[in-house]
């Protein structure tokens, strides 16, 4: 239950709760105490450092993810350009070998604005909801959204500039995103137009890829420039409604990243690479409530932390599957 509450708190932008020491389970307190007493020898430290060095060059999940994201988006492109009719449409709605699929947020906007739902849209929405429930909700963001990939590259540029102190990451309150979400929902309902779609770089980028570029790409470029020079990953962190919609689907998803507090050294490198670092606050010393903790639904399951963690304290888990096997 606390997983759902913590997930929803993350999605709406509230700060993660800090557990009281007295309220922690005994086994967790034992681990924390042991770690406090434990002094590392020089050899152990050196071994650790080497582990970190290896981890820095490990990109297993990132490579898999980029390959998936590019392949799926290219599938849209070649389906149209070569007329092979495998995956027709764009990310907002499509047909996979004839079977309807609809982006959950786009479908929601259309339902609110149009106030009628045709059967094709129901089929598409349910299919996609089940698919992303299985795959972890916001997995959509990092494994499929074309803007995510562009933003990832913009982010690495931002970090390089920040390292040279040429730019500074301006942070906003994460409550902006749910506030805007509610606003866009009400706006669709009130005006009868799918207003969010106008500015959604996901739809714009997807259509530009498939149907050719247009002026709308200037908006996408402007967003990327904002992320490079002003605020790290601003669209995904503070604005995007699609992330919240998939996040809500992901709260009950069995696919999660799991944190194991027993092996963690609290260096916090995972939080530095994470798009949504608040989901990893549990990796701060004293925050874990159990020996293992599932990372909340705002996590995009991108795997950057899994790649990076030198002690493998973060790993992909499918809830219930380890018991079944």
């Amino acid at each position, binding site marked *: 239950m606390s997983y759902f509450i913590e997930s929803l708190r993350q999605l709406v932008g509230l700060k993660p709760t800090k557990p009281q020491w007295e309220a922690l389970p005994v086994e967790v307190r034992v681990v924390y105490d042991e770690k406090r007493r434990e002094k590392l020898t020089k050899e152990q430290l050196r071994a650790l450092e080497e582990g970190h060095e290896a981890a820095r060059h490990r990109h297993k999940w990132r490579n898999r993810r980029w390959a998936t994201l590019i392949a799926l988006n290219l599938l849209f492109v070649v389906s149209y350009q070569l007329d092979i009719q495998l995956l027709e449409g*764009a990310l907002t*709605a499509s*047909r996979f070998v004839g079977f309807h699929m609809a982006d959950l947020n786009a479908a929601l906007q259309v339902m609110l604005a149009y106030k009628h739902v045709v059967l094709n849209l129901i089929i598409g929405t349910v299919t996609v909801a089940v698919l992303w429930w299985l795959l972890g909700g916001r997995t959509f963001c990092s494994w499929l959204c074309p803007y995510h990939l562009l933003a990832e590259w913009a982010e690495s540029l931002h970090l390089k500039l920040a390292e040279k102190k040429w730019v500074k990451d301006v942070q906003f309150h994460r409550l902006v995103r749910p506030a805007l979400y509610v606003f866009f929902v009400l*706006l669709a309902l009130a005006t009868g137009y799918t*207003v969010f779609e*106008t500015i959604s770089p996901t739809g714009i980028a997807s259509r530009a890829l498939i149907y050719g570029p*247009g*002026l709308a790409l200037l908006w996408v470029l402007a967003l990327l420039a904002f992320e490079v020079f002003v605020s790290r990953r601003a669209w995904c962190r503070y604005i995007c409604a699609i992330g919240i919609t998939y996040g809500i689907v992901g709260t009950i998803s069995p696919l999660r990243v799991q944190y194991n507090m027993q092996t963690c050294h609290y260096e916090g490198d995972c939080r530095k690479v994470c798009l949504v670092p608040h989901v990893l606050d549990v990796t*701060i010393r004293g925050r874990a409530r159990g020996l293992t903790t599932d990372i909340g639904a705002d996590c995009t399951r991108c795997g950057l932390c899994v790649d990076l963690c030198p002690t493998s304290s973060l790993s992909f888990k499918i809830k219930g599957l380890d018991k079944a096997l």
Partner: protein
Amino acid sequence: MTDKPKAKSGRAPVSAKRRDQSRREFLRSSALAAGMVSISLLGLMPLIGNANARLRPPGALKDRLAEQEFFAACIKCGQCVQVCPVEAILLADLTDGVGIGVPYIEARDQACDFSCDGLQCVLACPTGALTHDIDYPAQARMGFARLARPDACLAAHGKGFQGQARGPDFGGMLRYEDVDRWKPIRVADYPYDLPLCDLCIRQCPIEIRIAQCAAGTPPSGDPNQCPPRQAIRLEHSDDGRSAIPVVADGCVGCGVCEMICPVDPAAIVIDIDQSADWV
């Protein structure tokens, strides 16, 4: 990220600096939200006065220039674009505001000639923005043709037409039954030799269907494909030397007449605020 070590204040009194920081965070967060709200609301501006009303694909949920329902229902996926055999459908750009990604047709460049017969765009539409209530070309109400420049009309001057209707470089396509029943070809590859120009009637998809039905061979062998009413006919002058095209209430506004008209600009055009049901 949000928790620098010093930020851990618990219930201790909040320092002035910290208060100032959170006030600034609140202000810039509000500014970000307000900025996004304004930019997205800018998208409503092109709608004022129906400034961006266009010729839409068959079945579009619209009433004359009022396209609100169509915009609401369209999920902007472009599946209609993908299935169109003559690639008549385009997607609107950012200049159309909230209409971004919504399909339209530029009839003069490439009209809808219904060469798919089955209204593939309607079938492909996942949301019913192209209403699933219509099944046949004759049921479409895209607009209505009008002889806008009778002076320019070749037939009105008793002139014929020879050669490529829109010149050698025109990329538009039509389906010619006598060439290939399934595959549309470029208009430029189909030169004409007409003693009296009747291209707008000759190529009218509705008139073609009426002729096919009269010959006992309705499209796809389906008698339901037969249009109930004529769309356009040539009305000859008393001396029989010239003629003018007269649009009738079977016209669906597909735009083929506007596309094929050999004079430039076209003598016959589509009015998007009219349809057979309203004239």
